[in-house]
């Protein structure tokens, strides 16, 4: 009994010391600016194998904060969080990070997370505290839109009933129609054969691709869903597609669900000039390996992230970034989307400060300010948000197989 009291006292004392330390830290770090400090947090997987994905956007946020260190008298600082455990993004770790951010009243917004499953775990945590979050890379449509197959529903992720989550990547529902437009307008392939891996993502993009093809006057000549675990032979499907006059094959699948194995098996059935199309799930080296020596220039995939480097107006910005951030992982596909998210947040915080009469704005005011973002022109696109938090015109990029790797073809804005 005696001992227990002793240890309880020790714990209390420990807490008191920590609290005191925190209390002391606050005024000293806020000393640089007149009105106080506003923290922009970022949450990406930045250690281990996932560092290749997560460090880019983190560097983008750091760069944006570096360029905008002071807004209307408030000092802006960047606090990075890492959601990787053993090198792999972890929803639980993400939720812990967000709990920490929520507890820090100076944090007025978060850029991240990188992965849709981490977003699923962290949106409710931020939502309860009205903390705004903007993701550069989440594409899962169920994060913002309600479809019958969504579990959990977007409403369940937002316990307060008020949206606090925004993203600038196009949701997965946009990829299929975008590729359908590309197929008909650019490739002139109006008769297509479509297959899917029968999973949520794959079947979703395949269905949306087919719908748009038909809406544009094209024809889906064969439509099949495979149990990819037990299917190794795609030849009957391919033969059927050929006999029906298919001018292109669309794979609603990822490399992990045999997305590009039919491409290898097409060799003895189709000539190599028949395009093979798919979502971002096939846009990796595994797909190229699986396609074998039938990996040709007629393979295309869509990607929901815009490439900042494609716009000549961004050249000075990118050069400046490269001069300041020199690590190998700093400049990745999502560096400038991350930068843009931070810019959206900074812009919104500026307007929220005005709304608060020049004082520290509340988190609710920042959420509202992000929602009110209208036509903000940034490095990867021009952004406004709909009521779900999706970008009203996201950018879709197209990639083509060329000389051993995927290379950029073009990108354009797609409405929803």
């Amino acid at each position, binding site marked *: 009994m005696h001992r227990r009291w002793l240890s309880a006292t020790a714990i209390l004392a420990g807490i008191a010391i920590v609290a005191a330390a925190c209390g002391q830290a606050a005024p000293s770090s806020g000393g640089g600016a007149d009105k106080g400090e506003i923290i922009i947090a970022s949450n990406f997987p930045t250690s281990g194998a996932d560092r290749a994905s997560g460090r880019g956007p983190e560097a983008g946020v750091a760069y944006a904060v570096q360029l905008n260190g002071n807004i209307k008298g408030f000092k802006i600082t960047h606090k990075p969080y890492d959601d990787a455990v053993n090198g792999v993004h972890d929803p639980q770790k993400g939720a812990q990070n967000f709990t920490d951010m929520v507890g820090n009243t100076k944090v007025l917004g978060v850029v991240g997370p990188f992965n849709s499953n981490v977003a699923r775990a962290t949106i409710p945590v931020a939502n309860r505290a009205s903390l705004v979050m903007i993701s550069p890379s989440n594409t899962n449509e169920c994060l913002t839109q309600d479809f019958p197959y969504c579990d959990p529903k977007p409403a369940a992720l937002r316990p307060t009933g008020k949206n606090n989550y925004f993203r600038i990547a196009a949701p997965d529902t946009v990829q299929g129609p975008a590729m359908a437009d590309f197929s008909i307008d650019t490739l002139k392939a109006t008769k297509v054969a479509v297959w899917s891996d029968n999973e949520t993502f794959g079947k979703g993009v395949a269905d949306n691709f087919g719908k748009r093809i038909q809406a544009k006057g094209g024809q889906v000549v064969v439509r099949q869903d495979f149990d990819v675990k037990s299917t190794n*032979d795609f030849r009957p499907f391919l033969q059927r597609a050929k006999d029906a006059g298919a001018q292109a094959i669309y794979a609603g699948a990822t490399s992990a669900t045999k997305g590009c194995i039919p491409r290898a098996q097409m060799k003895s059935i189709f000539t190599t000039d028949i395009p093979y199309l798919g979502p971002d799930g096939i846009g990796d080296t595994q797909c190229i390996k699986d396609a074998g020596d039938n990996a040709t220039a007629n393979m295309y995939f869509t990607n929901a992230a815009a490439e900042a480097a494609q716009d000549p107006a961004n050249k000075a910005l990118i050069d400046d970034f490269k001069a300041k951030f020199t690590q190998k992982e700093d400049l990745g596909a999502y560096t400038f989307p991350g930068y843009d998210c931070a810019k959206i947040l900074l812009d919104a915080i500026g307007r929220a400060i005005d709304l608060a009469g020049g004082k520290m704005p509340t988190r609710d005011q920042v959420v509202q300010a992000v929602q009110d973002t209208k036509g903000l022109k940034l490095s990867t696109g021009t952004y406004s948000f709909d009521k779900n938090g999706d970008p009203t015109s996201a950018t879709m990029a197209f990639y083509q197989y060329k000389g051993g790797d995927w290379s950029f073809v073009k990108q354009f804005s797609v409405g929803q």
Partner: protein
Amino acid sequence: MGTIGEAIRQRRSLLRSGGTGLILNAGLVLLVALFGILLIQRIYDQGASFFLQILAFALANGGIYALIALGYTMVYGIIELINFAHGDVFAFGTFLSASLIPIFGLAEGQAFGPGTALALVVVFVVTMLVCGVLNVSIERIAYRPLRNAPRLAPLITAVGMSFFLEGVLFLWKGPSNVHYPDILPSAGVQIFGATLGVKEVVVLVIAVVLMVALALFVDRTRLGKAMRATAQDRDAALLMGIDIDQTIAATFFIGAVLAGAGGTMFGLYYNTSVFDLGFSAGLFAFTAAVFGGIGNIYGAAIGGMFIGIIRSFWDGYFDSAWTDVVIFAILILTLVFRPTGIMGMRVPEK
């Protein structure tokens, strides 16, 4: 005691006669006929060349399933054990031959000539022998010490062996799909508008040659006779001076040799493999063995062909999301009406 023995004899004779009644058999025939009518309708709509093309794919598919199924059925026939590790031995065969192909100087996209054909034969033989040795080792380590243990014990070690091999394959080439080099030429000959590809011919010819060789081996050789005797009555075979351990080991060896050949053909034909391939492919091959009548090598060959044909035709003519459902529905119906499988009746267990 007498009544129990009598009951068992009755049950056996019932099984041998292959059915639980005329009506049920008639029902099966009726279902097959209905499906046949539906299929014929579709075939008519799609045209003859498409039918021939799908048939070529189906036979190649079936040949590969049949080769795997033989290993299941032989082992079951001789020691009444479902060798769950067999599918993984097959997957090991795909991995091994994929690694051997570059070693023997074969590469994707090179011209196919007598030299490459010879190298490919060497790859086949090495893969088959290594798979055989692997399966014999599995038998020695995990099954032989448990031969007289209760039935469940070796069943569990078989499951364990399956997972063990899967783990080894995972460590070997990782979780992703493994691309298998496309060595065989994609060319083919035109027959009535369908293309009979070199790949289909190679797969089918090798499968048929191996199956005929196996049938002759079991039928004509001393070891084959010993295998049949051991399958029928192990104790009696022992009394007749047959080396039981050696005979059983030989059975495992031959079964795995066929799986090794099947694995190489699988890779050459589908150009892909993955560490857990043994589970799904093994499941269907085992289904084929049961479908044909487990323990019967002719049944396994027919069952494998049958499953390949259902799969390809369903993918080609109907909705492929239903392919697995259809295969297992047919399996269930067959077993309900004919508990011993298609061939379970005419030939005694082997």
